[in-house]
């Protein structure tokens, strides 16, 4: 069990439910499915997606309070002409930073860390630049030399926010968000930093990645359904994931630092774990998933019987959801029927790199506000022994939750979140 308590003191989110954490909370409570027929040219051919649209950083910066002035000036200078993932990440990071009160009651710059989730964050930029390069190699933007590196996120965000502690990107495929939460949690446990931003960036895929995912059978072909009914986590009719576009950021902070600054304690990140499956494949691995959940609970000092709610990975893939249910049976045994289960991806799509951070925030919102969001399109549950949330949000008060993320390449992760 960890001896230092780590709290979530700031949250920022930009999802297909809208701009900011309040929009996400509202969307979850109302159970709004943000998935529809795609509008963006890069998504042509995809049957459904939860798109981010109508967002511009220039407009979004106007929504922040006056007190954030100098930060907003830096954001304008550094991020207004940056690629879309960085624009979106800047918004979420600012929202989380201000929510944590880091502008008003700062932590020394060298005691703040920054972990950015995901790898290959510039795929659409690379695809578009390649087309331009073939036409005329002379006019390659020199800044592309920095933009193609994932660490451009680290550079831009650290400069905007003045972060001088440890910082890096960490890849874990679809589990990247949870991997980043784990690494930040460990940095805080080690005492390397007092506060740490965890950023889950937008997965800005190009038509090439989308087509490959389609050929792999991972992406839902749509099945002739209306777009808002395509994503069906835990349903017998599920046939693959639906892409979600979203960015999220949380500030993790040691208890002494958070209390000393009078920061809000949204929830405790009580434990986290990553377990490999010794496999390069896309196939889920029950044993790895079980081990990830058990390790996270052990680190949090939480018995399986104390868990009341699981925010499942649940991408709506045929094999993945089945494996997760089996892993939950192994971890919880007879207690499974008392654990509420839901899948945020049914409302928001699969946000890939940021999914773990988005779902961490979704979990915190539900713990803090005393409700559990519905499972969209769950008509015929794949298991009868599980306690799936129904078709409407329930006013359920829960105190301890798990949030799972599993990625291609045998990367299994779980985090334990406890109500403050």
């Amino acid at each position, binding site marked *: 069990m960890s001896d230092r308590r780590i709290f979530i003191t700031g949250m920022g989110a930009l999802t297909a439910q809208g701009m900011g954490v309040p929009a996400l909370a509202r969307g979850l409570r109302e159970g709004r499915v943000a998935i529809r027929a795609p509008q963006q040219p890069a998504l042509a051919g995809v049957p459904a997606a939860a798109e981010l649209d109508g967002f511009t950083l220039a407009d979004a910066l106007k929504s922040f309070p006056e007190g954030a002035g100098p930060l907003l*000036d830096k954001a*304008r*200078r550094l991020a*207004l*002409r940056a690629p879309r993932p960085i624009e979106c990440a800047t918004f979420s990071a600012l929202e989380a930073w201000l929510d944590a009160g880091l502008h008003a009651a700062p932590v020394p710059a060298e005691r703040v860390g920054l972990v950015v989730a995901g790898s290959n964050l510039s795929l659409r930029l690379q695809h578009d630049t390649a087309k331009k390069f073939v036409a005329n190699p*002379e*006019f*390659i*933007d*020199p*800044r592309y030399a*920095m933009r193609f590196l994932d660490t451009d996120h680290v550079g831009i965000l650290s400069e905007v926010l003045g972060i001088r502690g440890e910082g890096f990107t960490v890849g874990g495929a679809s589990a990247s968000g949870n991997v980043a939460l784990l690494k930040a949690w460990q940095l805080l446990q080690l005492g390397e930093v007092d506060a740490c931003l965890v950023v889950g960036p937008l997965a800005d895929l190009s038509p090439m990645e989308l087509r490959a995912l389609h050929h792999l059978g991972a992406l839902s072909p749509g099945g002739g359904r209306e777009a808002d009914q395509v994503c069906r986590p835990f349903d017998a009719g599920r046939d693959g994931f639906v892409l979600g576009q979203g960015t999220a950021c949380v500030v993790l902070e040691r208890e002494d630092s958070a209390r000393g600054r009078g920061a809000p304690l949204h929830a405790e990140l009580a434990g986290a774990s990553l377990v490999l499956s010794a496999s390069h494949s896309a196939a889920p691995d029950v044993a790895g998933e079980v081990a990830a959940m058990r390790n996270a609970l052990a680190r949090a000092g939480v018995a399986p019987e104390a868990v009341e709610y699981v925010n499942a990975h649940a991408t709506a893939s045929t094999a993945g959801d089945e494996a997760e249910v089996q892993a939950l049976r192994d971890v919880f045994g007879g207690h499974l029927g008392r654990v509420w289960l839901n899948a945020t991806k049914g409302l928001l799509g699969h946000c890939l790199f940021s999914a773990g951070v988005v779902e961490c925030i979704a979990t915190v919102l539900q713990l803090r506000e005393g409700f559990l969001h519905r499972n969209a399109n769950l008509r015929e549950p794949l298991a009868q022994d599980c306690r799936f949330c129904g078709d409407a949000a329930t006013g359920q008060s829960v105190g301890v939750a798990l949030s799972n993320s599993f990625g291609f390449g045998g990367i299994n992760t779980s985090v334990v979140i406890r109500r403050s």
Partner: protein
Amino acid sequence: MSTDLFQVISENILKVLPDVDARLITPERQLKELGANSIDRMEIVMGTMEDLGINVPVTELSQAKDIGSLLGIFQRHHAQR
């Protein structure tokens, strides 16, 4: 034509440095004075060359001391197109 070229340079400066007051962009000013770092300057130059459809060797560009002399180099290449 020189007014048009100046306009193209100005637009590229503002694209790279969106917080700069457009009135400060004058031929006698250096890009550095407007807050452009070396990558910003390259980006402004590349963007302008792309818009004009010209390609100026780096050695020639390095001789430009201010926005006015940059404009002169671009004018010469643009006229020779």
